């Protein structure tokens, strides 16, 4: 079951090497994204997750809010 992190945990984990992933459409990522985040829109997750992300490091995903 995926865990939940708050702002502070996110900062700490990213600092320690976690991969931060914005799953919103690419245009929204281009306008604003969190520092160190990469763009992997939900629709491309199935095809690209394995090549884009490292399975040996934690992954944190986010979108606009939890909706």
């Amino acid at each position, binding site marked *: 079951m*995926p865990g939940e992190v708050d702002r502070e945990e996110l900062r700490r984990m990213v600092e320690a090497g976690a991969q931060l992933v914005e799953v919103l459409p690419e245009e929204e990522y281009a306008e*604003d994204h969190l*520092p160190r*985040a990469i763009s992997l829109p939900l629709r491309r997750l*199935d095809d690209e997750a394995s090549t884009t992300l490292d399975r040996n490091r934690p992954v944190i*995903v986010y*979108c*606009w809010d*939890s909706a």
Partner: protein
Amino acid sequence: MSPRAAWRLESLGFGDVHEYRGGKLDWMAAGLPTEGTNAKRPRVGRLADTDVPTCRLDDRLGDVRDRTRKQGWDAAVVINSERVVFGLLRAKELDLQADHQVSQAMRPGPSTFRPYVLADEVATYLHDHELENVVITTSDGRLVGLLRKENVSR
């Protein structure tokens, strides 16, 4: 969207997956920096006047008016002890009967904007609604400041 992404990653074999529930909204509402094409455009949180006069529901209107105008303002924000915004007194309300309570005179539940909103979006809103100012609050309703038209149309 992010809950689905987190679960899908797990199903694809990723073992250490987390979700930042607050998302970009929470991050930006906290005033933290972002990167991207919008990052350098001015946002209302930085342009709002944080020294706007404030008052409480049970203050006497005449006292608030005197205090507000003495500070060179034509508006005051009605808040509680937690700085949660209850109402707004613009020039018209400030000029109502001096012995009214603020709660009788204020505009309740004024429209508010979050600090991360782009300044030009609010400038358009102020223009379209013929307003002189608008209240900026955090996502939990606490006062950040008052954004005046002249602050976004410079």
